[in-house]
């Protein structure tokens, strides 16, 4: 009885059935957009099935189709798959172990229908040995007859099981990751800090530390709206201690098992912007931070100034008039109004961050260095204690498929009978896959043994 149950769980048939079931069911989730009540699929289905939109979505939620990759039946399929794989692998382990431990042996009875026989007059034995270079060879002599057995790549038999082991490790790691780990979003405005991660389902979680965004920068390719780089300078604050880090796309940071990724950014219109400005006489600039409407004096002169406007992407339209195109921070500029010592306006000027010479007036200079508080950055915060286990699984799986598919166990048996000068040779072979190429292999052996010289 137990054997029957084990046989069932170890069967390749079950595995093949599960392949198809997982493939079919997971394809569903790609057509019905997950966790989205407003997706096209919902409209289409409700239209075709004559249900109201709400009914349809409720039905999708109930069946798990709206979030199917975490629905009980899909997880159950994956668990079945894992059990099948595990049982199957352990079931056959002793058999494989024996195969891996047993070196090839002389076999006097293997030469029959499938072997190749031929005659030659040369020094057959040394030529056979030559051919078998790269194999591990055993030989035996019995009167006028010499027997050879050779093999290579015995380890290749382990490939299938290493592959399966890799998948098992990945499945276990995924299970741990899903149950213990999380991934959520954390949005921070420049100059502020936050410690609350928001998840897709709108629930939140407090982190044991807070993240302060000191500066966000986006760089564009020249003459293009294509971004080249996003960078957030952040500080991680925990118990009054600060650590400064730089987060970029593809270069996340790690802190106590949490990883922080750059995922999104945007413009945050508000009045509390801080403008970092270099100002003074040419060659003697001072760095200051000012806000809208806050007067500052230009060092070394009697003149004062204030920032009256800010444009994130200032450019010229077709008529040559200044216009702000978007909020992508492609060409940020500040409008600076200057006043003389009697507080009489001297006029205004747009100063561009990307063009320092735009703030030149005589030997006075105002450079717009940066603006703080105009942008926000969205980070993904992930926590997965089994992360390293996944990588171990990846490594094992990769190693397994390479061994399983690019190496093979090959065995060759040769018998040489000395018949008064003429040597009768028989050869047989076996390999762990592509058996149909065995005759070709034997033919090669024959060619190399009967070759002159």
């Amino acid at each position, binding site marked *: 009885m137990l054997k029957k149950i084990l046989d069932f769980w170890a069967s*390749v048939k079950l*595995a*093949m059935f599960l*392949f*198809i079931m*997982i*493939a079919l069911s*997971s*394809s569903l*989730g*790609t*057509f019905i957009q*997950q966790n989205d009540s407003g997706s096209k699929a919902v409209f289409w289905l409700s239209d075709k099935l004559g249900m109201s939109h709400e009914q349809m979505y409720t039905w999708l939620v109930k069946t798990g189709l709206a979030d199917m*990759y975490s629905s009980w039946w899909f997880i159950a399929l994956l668990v079945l798959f894992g059990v099948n794989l595990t049982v199957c692998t352990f079931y056959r382990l002793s058999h494989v172990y024996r195969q891996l431990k047993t070196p090839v042996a002389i076999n006097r009875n293997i030469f029959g229908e499938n072997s190749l026989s031929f005659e030659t007059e040369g020094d057959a034995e040394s030529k056979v040995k030559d051919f078998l270079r790269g194999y591990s060879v055993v030989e035996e002599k019995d009167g006028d007859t010499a027997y050879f057995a050779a093999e290579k790549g015995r380890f290749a038999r382990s490939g299938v099981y290493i592959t399966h082991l890799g998948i098992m490790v990945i499945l276990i790691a*995924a299970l741990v990751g899903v149950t213990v780990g999380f*991934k959520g979003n954390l949005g921070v405005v420049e100059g502020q800090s936050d410690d609350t991660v928001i998840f897709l389902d709108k629930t939140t979680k407090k982190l044991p530390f807070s993240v302060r965004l000191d500066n966000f920068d986006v760089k564009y*390719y020249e003459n*293009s709206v*294509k*971004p*080249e*780089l*996003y960078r957030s300078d952040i500080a991680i604050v925990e118990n009054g201690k600060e650590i400064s880090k730089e987060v*970029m*796309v*593809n270069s*996340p940071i790690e802190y106590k098992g949490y*990883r922080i*990724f750059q*995922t999104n950014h945007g413009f945050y219109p508000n009045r509390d912007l801080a403008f970092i400005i270099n100002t003074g006489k040419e060659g003697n600039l001072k760095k200051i931070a000012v806000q809208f409407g806050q007067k500052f004096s230009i060092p070394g002169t009697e003149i004062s100034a204030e920032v009256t406007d800010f444009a994130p992407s200032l450019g010229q339209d077709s008529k040559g008039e200044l216009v702000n195109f978007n909020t992508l921070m492609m060409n940020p500029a500040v409008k600076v109004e200057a006043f003389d010592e009697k507080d009489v306006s001297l006029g205004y000027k747009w100063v561009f961050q990307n063009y320092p010479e735009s703030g030149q007036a005589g030997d006075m200079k105002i450079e717009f260095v940066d603006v703080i508080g105009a942008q926000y950055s969205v980070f*993904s*915060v*992930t926590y997965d204690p089994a*992360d390293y286990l*996944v*990588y171990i699984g*990846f490594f094992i*799986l*990769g190693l397994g*498929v*390479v061994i*399983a*598919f*690019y190496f093979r166990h090959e065995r060759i048996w040769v018998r040489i009978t000395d018949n008064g000068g003429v040597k009768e040779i028989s050869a047989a072979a076996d390999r762990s*896959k*592509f058996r*149909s190429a065995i005759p070709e292999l034997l033919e090669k052996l024959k060619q190399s043994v009967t070759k002159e010289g």
Partner: protein
Amino acid sequence: MNSSVLFGISSITYMVTMAVYVAYLIMKKEIIGKVASWMVIFGFVCHTIAFFLRWVEFADTYKLGFFHSIPVTNLYESLLFFAWCVVAGNIWIERRYKTKFMGAFLTAIAGMAVAFVDTVGAAKGIQPLVPALKSNWLLAHATMSFIAYAAFSMSFVAAVLHLASLRLPRRSGVYIFWTVALGTFVFVTLFVVGDFAAALSAKAVEGAYKPLYFTFKKMGAGGFAVLFLVYAVVCTVFWFSGGKLACLMDRFSIDSKAMEELTYKMISVGFPIFTVGGLIFGAVWADKAWGRYWSWDPKETWALITWLIYAFYLHARYVKDWTGAKASAVAVAGFVCTIFTYIGVNLLISGLHSYGAL
């Protein structure tokens, strides 16, 4: 010399070569076969030079690290790279199996890939990389995926030829399946080309062309009926004349068994590359860029489905010794999934993995 000029030369060469191969199949003259073989090699050499030229241009233009600039980062470049792999496979098969029979089919696939690029007008210029694509895993992931796709497409050709050689009765399910799959494949390619031509003549192409968008927008219920009818006719033609392929194979004494072996072999070559490059490296990259190695994104999911179908094939073939029609039918199904993963997902479903968008 500019890389696009060389790409153009090799594209045209592939298409002309396909015609030469077909002529060879019809007339069975050795000299025509030789010409075809040399033309393929010529196209391949041009293509290789173009590929490296573009690589260098890319690196120069954007001052990226050399390995960050391998030209496989958008649909245009990836399709060209795919065609390159298929043609390399064709040259290998000709040498290994001493037959030029597969040439017509493989250059057809390479030609279709190139034609698809030209018609959908996928942005051809060298485009700067968006930040998410600047990763060393990209080189490994994208390159290996396309090599695997190329191996799978060769297995598809071999599987179709194997199925044809079995001379199944027209009523058999497997026969219907493979002829309809082949018909669908050809129909979709023709449809995309036709749609492009229609959109072009109506001057609806401005900058970016959205495949099939033009036709779908114009079409009423009647239009769809006609379209479906055309599709049905194409499939029926393939269904009706599928047997002819077997006669052609006989003329060139193509062994049914050898085609079955080749199917298995190509899947055996492609599967590990797909596992490591497509799935594992893809997952590592996703983990580095988005913080999750697996997020059931449509592209990921379809890659997994493709992987499962081929895993099914390998278990059936290796453990259960399926060598008949059923196994090759699974190989055909695997390729249908491959195509869907590669192009269908980008056209029909959008997700995180939208870099291949047109």
